[in-house]
């Protein structure tokens, strides 16, 4: 196990046990990261950022500011043009494409549009995540029930996702992202399609996760939402970091 991952696991273990631990290890470290697309549009410009293990951080800014690009780089869906990115102790910029899926299994990703299998049930959507990572059927059944209980949807396991409200669908997406117990959760505008009560509902799940020790990177353009929570926020504008400490 790499050094960073060892730290993360120890930290989560201690936090679950209720032990107060100081944040002395980074989950994410971005150093002078640039991202320019072939069309010469610069999405990120000289981003240097450190996110500690167990931290909840907001990435904010208007549309086109680079929030999604930043998350996609962390999720290995894009490579930076230059700079270095270390996630959970792994220098992801040096990983070949055959190893990326292994990195992704240690991250959960939640999207504004949920990205659920529309013709499947709630349970099947979550089970799919476990099938993909090679779990056996018996284990899948148990884990699906456990995770649905955590997001309050245990009664809806056999229902089609199309019969759920937007808030409930997002809860399924969060459950799916969490079912493999990733130490890092990336959320790209997860409340963008939700009304206020649903937003609060979903935020409650995120804050619970944070209290359980997960590191959460939450991209949103909703400044009111950010002001309601006492977490650090990084403000991006035209790909540059204009406020928020490194």
């Amino acid at each position, binding site marked *: 196990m790499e050094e960073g991952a060892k730290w993360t696991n120890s930290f989560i273990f201690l936090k679950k046990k209720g032990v107060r631990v100081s944040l002395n290890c980074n989950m994410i470290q971005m150093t002078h990261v640039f991202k320019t697309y072939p069309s010469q549009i610069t999405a990120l410009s000289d981003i240097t950022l450190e996110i500690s293990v167990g931290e909840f951080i907001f990435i904010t800014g208007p549309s086109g500011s680079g929030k999604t690009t930043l998350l996609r780089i962390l999720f290995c*869906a894009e490579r930076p043009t230059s700079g270095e990115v270390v996630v959970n102790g792994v220098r992801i910029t040096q990983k070949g494409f055959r190893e990326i*899926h292994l990195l992704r299994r240690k991250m959960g990703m939640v999207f504004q549009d949920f*990205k659920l299998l529309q013709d499947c049930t709630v349970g099947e959507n979550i089970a799919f995540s476990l099938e993909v990572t090679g779990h056996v059927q018996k284990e899948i059944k148990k884990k699906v029930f456990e995770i649905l209980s955590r997001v309050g949807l245990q009664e809806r396991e056999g229902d089609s996702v199309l019969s759920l409200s937007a808030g409930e669908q997002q809860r399924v997406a969060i459950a799916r992202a969490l079912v493999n117990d990733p130490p890092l959760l990336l959320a790209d505008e997860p409340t963008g399609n939700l009304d206020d009560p649903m937003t609060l509902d979903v935020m409650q799940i995120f804050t619970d996760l944070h209290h359980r020790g997960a590191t959460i990177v939450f991209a949103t353009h909703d400044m009111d939402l950010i002001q309601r929570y006492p977490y650090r926020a990084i403000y991006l504008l035209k790909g540059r970091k204009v406020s928020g400490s490194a």
Partner: protein
Amino acid sequence: MRRNLFPNLTTIAIIGISMLLFSSFSLIAHNLTSFLRIWEDKIEVIAYLKKGIPMSEIESLLKETRQLEGIETVNYVSPYDAMTFMESKLGSQKNLLEGIQPGVLPSSFEIRLKKHFRNSMSIKEVVYQLKRFPQIEEIQYGQQWVETFSAVVHVFRLTQWVLGGLLLIGIIFITFNTLQLTISSRKDEIEIMYILGASPAFIQVPFYVEGLIQGLLGTGLAILFLFYFYYKVLLYHVFFLYITPSIKEWLTEIPILFLPPEKIVMIILGGMVLGFFGSFAASMRFLKYRV
């Protein structure tokens, strides 16, 4: 496959139609080749002898002819045998031959060639050797017919390969595009698999297996349909409905064959390979691991 029933059925149907075209062509080619073989088998040379040759000389000539290269059998046909043959051919009209003496007819050799000599070039070689015997007056072997026939065989075999090749390219193109549409209809599912950390093999292998199964089902259906057509239509109906009795009689001598088992296996395997490679090529665009 269950989740994407319609695109899968479309792919199976396209592979099926393409392979039906190909196997129909193979069936025609197989039957024409067998038909040509039957004709080739019937090729023989008749050497007419000069009149008044003593029997002892005919016997030694018979021996010499049998020793020539490419000769399988040589039968001596005396004028009396020729007369009997003509009478049997004329049937009820044999009285036309009344008053004709057998001596009017020449004696002849019916020469059957070895299998690999039954072609235009080889026949010419045999005829050249026969012409050196002074006792032989005339040789008949349907020269023009044999030459035309050989040319037809040659052109047909060439056409079979050229058309077969073009058809195959067309089939690959159609299958590739249909499979690309099938995979494209599942790009959301593929994207979700990427997000969840599925390995490249986990994403790609089912598509290849699906391609193989689609190839097997499509080709299997094509062969079944072709067999049904052969059994119900070719064998019993078409030829016996709209043709004159004389052609009917002639056609009954020609066996209409279905594809032999080894060709069926090859076509089915070909369909599976087609499905696999179509799937492989089509998936390259969508399944390339995005970084």
